[in-house]
């Protein structure tokens, strides 16, 4: 089973993508599945670390949280930009110690933090587990710390570890 379908999630995503790009029909499904199976074999030959999802049910919660935060930070950053030079510069660096170690979860956290306006992932020190962020509106460091630790890291750790 796992030899034919080495990456079920990857295969499902590729088939869905194929169907979205062409049309939803049985013929396209078969072609898409064939492409996905070949791609998954190629992926398996690279031997990437296989992520283990422990809590499927929390993924929806993560997606909703992230989408909500992206909307909110879009508004925040747009407001700061529109205030122009009347406003003092409040951006700065901050370092956050992370307990998260799973590479997939870290990659996901990087995508979340970068996709959200206002935070940019700059550097991750793997030996210490510290993350260097650049925050656009660093007025209250504690708020950002809490946001990343409790809102994202905690959830990601529950899902992946």
């Amino acid at each position: 089973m796992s030899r034919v379908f080495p990456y079920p999630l990857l295969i499902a995503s590729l088939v869905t993508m194929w169907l979205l790009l062409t049309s939803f029909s049985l013929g396209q499904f078969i072609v898409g599945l064939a492409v996905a199976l070949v791609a998954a074999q190629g992926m398996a030959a690279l031997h990437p670390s296989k992520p283990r999802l422990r809590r499927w049910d929390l993924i929806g919660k993560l997606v909703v949280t992230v989408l909500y935060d992206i909307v909110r930070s879009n508004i925040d950053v747009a407001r700061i930009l529109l205030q122009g030079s009347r406003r003092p510069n409040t951006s700065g660096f901050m370092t956050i110690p992370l307990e998260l170690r799973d590479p997939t979860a870290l990659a996901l956290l990087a995508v979340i933090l970068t996709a959200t306006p206002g935070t940019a992932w700059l550097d991750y020190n793997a030996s210490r587990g510290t993350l260097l962020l650049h925050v656009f509106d660093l007025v209250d460091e504690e708020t950002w710390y809490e946001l990343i630790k409790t809102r994202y890291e905690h959830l990601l750790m529950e899902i992946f570890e």
Partner: protein
Amino acid sequence: MSHIAELPLWASVLVSIFLLIGAGLTLIGSFGFYRLGSFYDRLHAPTLGTSWGAAAILIASMICFSVLQSRPVFHELLIGIFITITTPVTLMLLGRAALYRDRAEGNPEVPAMDPPKGVIEPGAAQE
């Protein structure tokens, strides 16, 4: 194949609202990119365009073509997904390159290589 005139009023209004939001956010992002001074600040401005700037325009496109073709059109979602997962790659590449150079030059505004373990550093807030 311009059938835009066939679009019902409610759909035109929705599409216009989303297009304006998307275009507006992208414009604000580009304006910020132009106005901001430091490199690291400039990393933040374009993300407006790649997050909800793009998303709102894609939603407008989905509504418009779903209504016109009387069937759900979803493949814009793929554009959104690919923008979201590829932006961090370039953004981190640029950010880390700048950080590497600033550290090599000994720029005092940039935090040093290895802060002590488990310490939240006070942000190097600039004036």
